[in-house]
């Protein structure tokens, strides 16, 4: 049983999704919901042994499974996790449960299909994080787009088709270049699709540089990095709450994960040579996007832009080439998973009651929803990077690491202290504080037990990670140090 843990983590949610799908029309909606919840919980339960049985002392792949898949091309069904991917699988399995609960009442149309899409996507994303074979990775990587595309396109807002297309084409463009790179690597490595083999494949500078940009586009779009970020605000605005949660909490991480699994170890010389370029883009994301977030009138857009700025810290941290920065980036990924999920859920809570995402339609919420206001305050502060919340840890680590490399990198990165607080708390002030601004707000009711449960679980995560991040960094440390040592070695032939 334990030998196939990763397979379970991938296939349990997918199978659950198929079963949920089988319940068919909305007449069986209740059954679909409960089945989906059971499936998501089961998915989380089978993922837990990954954490409890994880050996933090080694950087080697753990829970490895390997079987031939397409022998003609030497393609394997090869799975394994290290300290980088394991936390992400747990995050994904955890968020899936929340998303199912979040859609419990709001989704009344095509319930089975909605729930199934999330479950199947969850399994596919676990596959992305666990795959150690290039082709297997590519299949999961592309496969996860389909449910997400459907979630935005079917359950989304009025402009959902434009958003879904934009999102799909944007990300597809990048992936095609990645496929070309993978095929090139297949030939260079003497006929292997094994990602770990690619890590040791010698490559010339030109090849490295070309592949660097191909992978950068593929993963940079997903992160998303400035300037290939404009699909994200549109996708968020049109996506249903659950879609936004998964999009922000998980899908963006797939892009960042690609940097660690592909770009840095496969093209280390190009990564060093072009680090300035990525750092420049990352810092632009922090400062430019921070300013753009300030002027947003739509709460979802605001949080979407805030996500881009926060992900800028992730890529910045990776390309500082020191443990503090790289682990800071990974910590930031996990924290952003909690915080952005929570904020999109908060916006969902408000949207369910008032059917607007515009800041100007709110005001004085605290008078009617004090419990909600308290939760929202916590998550807003986490978004602003307040110490003792998870949002602080990653930003702090990356800023500290940046100072070691170049003072001005840290200088620009640290503007997030001001900008992050400005856009988050200004929105909070206009939405929550003040006197009740209109009759619609007057009618709003405080959050239900189900919503308290959702936000409460995330609040605990945000606080625990902020007060005691040691377990998180302990898990990733060995793998990160190994990765950085690997990246420090030239692969030029």
């Amino acid at each position, binding site marked *: 049983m334990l030998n196939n843990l990763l397979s379970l983590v991938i296939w349990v949610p997918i199978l659950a999704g198929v079963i949920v799908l089988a319940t068919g029309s909305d007449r069986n909606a209740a059954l679909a919901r409960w089945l989906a919840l059971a499936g998501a919980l089961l998915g989380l339960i089978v993922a837990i042994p990954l954490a409890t049985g994880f050996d933090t002392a080694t950087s080697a792949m753990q829970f490895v499974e390997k079987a031939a898949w397409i022998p003609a091309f030497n393609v394997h069904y090869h799975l394994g996790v290290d300290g980088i991917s394991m936390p992400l699988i747990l995050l994904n399995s955890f968020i899936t449960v929340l998303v199912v609960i979040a859609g419990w009442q709001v989704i009344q149309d095509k319930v089975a299909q909605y729930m199934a899409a999330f479950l199947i996507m969850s399994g596919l994303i676990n596959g992305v994080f666990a795959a150690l074979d290039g082709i297997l990775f590519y299949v999961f990587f592309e496969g996860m787009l389909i449910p997400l595309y459907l979630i935005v396109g079917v359950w989304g807002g009025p402009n959902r088709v434009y958003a879904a297309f934009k999102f799909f084409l944007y990300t597809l463009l990048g992936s095609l270049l990645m496929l070309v790179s993978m095929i090139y690597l297949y030939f260079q490595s003497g006929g292997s699709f094994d990602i770990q083999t690619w890590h040791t494949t010698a490559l010339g500078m030109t090849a490295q540089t070309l592949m660097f940009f191909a992978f950068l586009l593929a993963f940079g779009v997903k992160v998303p990095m400035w300037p290939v970020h404009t699909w994200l605000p549109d996708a968020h605005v049109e996506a249903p709450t659950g879609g936004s949660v998964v999009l922000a909490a998980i899908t963006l991480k797939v892009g960042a994960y690609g940097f660690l699994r592909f770009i840095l170890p496969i093209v280390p010389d190009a990564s060093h040579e072009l680090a300035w370029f990525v750092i420049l883009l990352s810092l632009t994301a922090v400062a430019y996007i921070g*300013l*753009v977030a300030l002027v947003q009138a739509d709460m979802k857009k605001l949080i979407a832009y805030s996500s881009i700025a926060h992900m800028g810290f992730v890529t910045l941290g990776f390309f500082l080439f020191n443990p503090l920065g790289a682990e800071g980036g990974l910590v930031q990924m996990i924290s952003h998973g909690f915080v952005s999920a929570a904020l999109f859920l908060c916006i969902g809570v408000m949207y369910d009651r008032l059917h607007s995402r515009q800041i100007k339609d709110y005001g004085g919420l605290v008078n009617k929803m004090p419990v909600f206001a308290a939760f929202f305050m916590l998550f807003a502060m986490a978004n602003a990077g307040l110490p003792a919340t998870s949002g602080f840890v990653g930003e702090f680590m990356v800023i500290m690491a940046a100072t070691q490399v170049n003072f001005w990198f840290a200088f620009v990165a640290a503007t997030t202290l001001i900008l992050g*607080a400005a856009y988050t708390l200004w929105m909070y002030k206009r939405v929550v504080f003040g006197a009740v601004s209109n009759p619609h707000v007057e009618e709003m009711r405080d959050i239900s037990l189900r919503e308290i449960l959702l936000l409460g679980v995330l609040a605990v995560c945000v606080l625990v990670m902020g007060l005691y991040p040691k377990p998180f960094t302990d898990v990733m440390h060995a793998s990160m140090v190994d990765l950085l040592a690997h990246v420090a070695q030239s692969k030029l032939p």
Partner: protein
Amino acid sequence: MRVDMQTLYLVVPLAPLFGAIVAGLFGRLVGRTGAHVVTIAGVAVSFIASVLVFQDVLAGHTFNGTVYTWMTLGDLHFEVGFLVDALTAMMMLVVTFVSLMVHVYTIGYMHDDPGYQRFFSYISLFTFSMLMLVMSNNFLQLFFGWEAVGLVSYLLIGFWYTKETAIYANLKAFLVNRVGDFGFILGIGLVLAHFGSLDYATVFAKAPSLARETITLWPGAPWMLMSVIGILLFIGAMGKSAQFPLHVWLPDSMEGPTPISALIHAATMVTAGIFMVARMSPLYELSDTALSFIMVIGAITALFMGFLGMVQNDIKRVVAYSTLSQLGYMTVALGASAYSVAVFHLMTHAFFKALLFLAAGSVIIAMHHNQDIRYMGGLKKYMPITWVTSLIGSLALIGTPFLSGFYSKESIIEAAKISHLPGAGFAYFAVLAGVFVTAFYSFRMYFLVFHGKERFHQGHGHGNEPDAHHGHDGAGHDGAHGQDHGGQPHETPWVVTGPLLALALPSLAIGYMTIEPMLFGDFFGRAIYVADRHPVMHELDQEFHGAMEMGLHALTTLPFWLAAAGVGLAAFFYLKRPDIPAAIARRFKFLHQMLLNKYWFDELYSWVFAQGALALGGGLWRRGDQNVIDGFFVNGSAHLVERFSRLVKAFQSGYIYHYAFAMLIGVFALVTWFARLN
């Protein structure tokens, strides 16, 4: 024995935290009485434990150790831990004592407020955060406490969240503080980058070896590392301790309930910056540049913020500007390497300023939440305890010999006089002139409130000058009302006057009692370090011949007569000839307007930073994201594809004769091509 002490160290911050959690999360369950009982008990336990810790420190026991490891990265450890030495122990006493007084006072002040439990929870949470800040043994936890007190300050300024001015003020306070934190975190980053640790002891031990280290911030201009670190850290202090030009948030913070103005915005949180610099004395002693910078900033704050106090009519704002000015005094002392003097003034100021704020609150209760001093007067006979304690606080503030403020302020003036750093001359002038200004605005307020004609029946302070913010918000917020509408004002209940009396005692005597051990004895021991090349403390020691002698001698010196002149002028202007200040205001209209508008800093910042950031953000969004990226690249390439497809589509018309015609042309072209080849 030592193990027991460590438990005690934990009890000090955790007791208030427990109270905060109970009152905050179970407020409805424990009720109003439950909330104040549990929080007051928590702070009282914390205070008693602090007293025990203080005695232990006096007995020569200090402590530096880890509570738990926050995070490790290989050799790099980030920890939560305590450093308990004389500086810490003194701060713990001040914080827990003032906090305890404010907790008790709050029972009276917030009596009718619907957010009673929430308020107690916040102030206990604040006490916890402040204690974690002062007890920290490393920069990380310092930053934790730093931000945590900022958070609670934010929550408390905006406590009356329906009041538009309050929720504007709290956002402003948070953001201005974040500007300071921006510098602060960069300073911490440089410390970690160059020292390889965030632990105070390690950093301080290594500091002398890095004294000559330079870093190049821009090509061709190397900076001393210590100067850069010192100034960056001090920018953090400028935010928290409201030093010019980051002072703008503090006057607006008066939108919060009065108890927190006393606790947070006068006695404790705003002094965090002063404490921090004193704590970092081993670093600051290595950079005269940073010290000069600090001294000049402090001097500007001390004098120019004092001027603003002279024209304020809101009782709390007068005290607020006085706080700004006094924080400037402390900063000057830091710049002069007289850290212990700064901390000494921090302590005396905590007592008399908390007293003044709480007394102002007592007046506000009696005045039915009218805060305009032009509509008070003659309260002396109605509120004897408030009157006496206010008088004590004011006298201490202006530096009356033998009172607490005298010893600390006089020492600051002397320190500025002795210092030879660049800017010391200006600082000396500023703190000296500040004495007159302080005396004038303090007694202007005192006379207008307690003496002269009773003006409180003349209306309820709907004054029409621009900056009169009133405690009114109609909805029956704060207050045990000491006065019924139309009736006579009367003294406030004991929960209010009790803390006033308890604070009046140290305001009177703490300076006389402690100046010798704190400044010239070895009370601080190794907690504060002064380099030999900075002789200020040494020379002060030479001049000092006992507290009694110092008080007597002062009667013949300039500061005393400046203060007396200030009081005299205030009495003349506001008791005898109120027409004169009005005439002066008319005569020097520009100056008066400048002071009323606080040198237009709010307008400037709002225009440059707030509007500027919005304009920039809007521009980037519309031009960058929408026009260039989406408009040109994304949708542009889509349109390009579309146009190309339309072009190609034209060939796929489906008419045979079109295809036939195209084939004909093709054949013709091919034939021509081959014909040419042959």
